[in-house]
């Protein structure tokens, strides 16, 4: 039976061993892609647009190789994801105090390019993590294992860019995005939340 990533699940064989192999391959590819992003973006990989684009392209290719065919996102999932992203941002703003200074950081054209790249990277990460990898791990070891594995992977791929202090924050974010995946059954909601959070965080 063939499922769709955006609506239910991706195409998965019944055999858990194949799913586990697929999950391991995806993790290996993810680790290699994150390392490539770090090396190619030197000396400041978090600020390299070409490295980010390469990373997004590699993740999309890996996800596509598993047979992921994202279904057309449903409006309600996108809205729910955006609402979750806004809610998380509001919690952050409340907890951390009155430090939010929304101000223009760059000329408009540069901001437009940045917004597109940031959104592409966020969506690519979600298609691979909460799409292909989540489905593979879920088929091999259940949804709880998928939630843990994808959240850990999300946190660890950011360590080369930001250091180990990124782990607790991104682990929590990963669990929230994974829960959105569980609730909605697809990647549209976590992708919307992820992209919105990245855009809001970048505008601070």
């Amino acid at each position, binding site marked *: 039976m063939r499922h769709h990533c955006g609506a239910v699940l991706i195409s998965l064989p019944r055999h858990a061993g194949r799913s586990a192999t697929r999950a391991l391959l995806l993790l290996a*590819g993810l680790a290699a892609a994150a390392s490539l992003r770090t090396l190619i973006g030197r000396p400041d990989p*978090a600020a*390299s647009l070409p490295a980010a684009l390469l990373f997004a392209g590699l993740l999309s290719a890996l996800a596509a190789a598993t047979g992921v065919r994202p279904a057309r996102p449903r409006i309600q999932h996108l809205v729910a994801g955006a609402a979750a992203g806004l809610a998380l941002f509001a919690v952050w703003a409340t907890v951390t105090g009155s*430090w939010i200074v929304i101000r223009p950081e760059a000329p408009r054209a540069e901001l437009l390019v940045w917004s597109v790249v940031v959104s592409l990277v966020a969506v690519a990460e979600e298609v691979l993590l909460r799409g292909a990898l989540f489905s593979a791990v879920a088929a091999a070891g259940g949804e709880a294992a998928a939630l843990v594995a994808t959240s850990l992977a999300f946190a660890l791929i*950011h360590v080369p860019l930001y250091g180990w202090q990124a782990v607790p924050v991104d682990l929590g974010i990963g669990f929230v995005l994974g829960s959105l995946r569980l609730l909605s059954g697809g990647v549209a909601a976590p992708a919307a939340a992820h992209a919105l959070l990245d855009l809001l*965080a970048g505008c*601070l």
Partner: protein
Amino acid sequence: MNRRVALALLALPTAALAAVWHALPAASPPLYDGVCLSDPYRLLGHTPAPNAASHVFGPVSDDNFMPSELTSDGTLMVGDPRYENPPQADVLLTTGTLVSPTEPFTLSITPVPSPATLPAGWTLDGNVYRVGAVTSSGVQLQPQSKDPATVLLRATASNPPKTLFVLYGGTWTRLQTVNAGCGDTFEGVSKTFGDFALFDQRAGGPAPPSGGGAPVIPIVVALAVVVALTFGGLLYLNRTPGR
């Protein structure tokens, strides 16, 4: 999975995140992700020069001061060639950080030449910034110990990770330093004002030029091969029927 369980899974990490965010320094980001936009670093003595900024505050007791942020950009806006993107220095004050009940005071951020003495075993990265607050009658103010200031400095590059130090009373003090979100911005909490700077533990001398040091090209090729093999393996798994 049951929706109630999933909703609980949504609420639990949100609560945990709130605790983590609360524990992190003031300017920590909501998540460590995305892509940072930044202009080239401005070194003191070069063109364009790094910015300085100051702001005058009215008299404040320890409970009527609003949380404030002063960046090295001051009030500069996009389009001004002096505009730094992002600001290279930033100081955050919360309620109670500074107390001057009767006099106004000026908070300032100024890039200054590197002091003659630097922390032993550490290499300076970027500019040294003097952060200070002085009342109209010339009294130097220091942060209250219960409400210290948060200082953010941008480094010339994110790698290797940097450590924030403050020079006060002739002594460099190492501050607990975390990445502030964009890869090259670091922050720490300080109970004193003084001269702030980022350092790394390179064994003397400036950073190697980009591309130097580790053999990057063979590693990049090896990683590309891993990605290609992984891609091929996934395709193979996808196209061969399961047992």
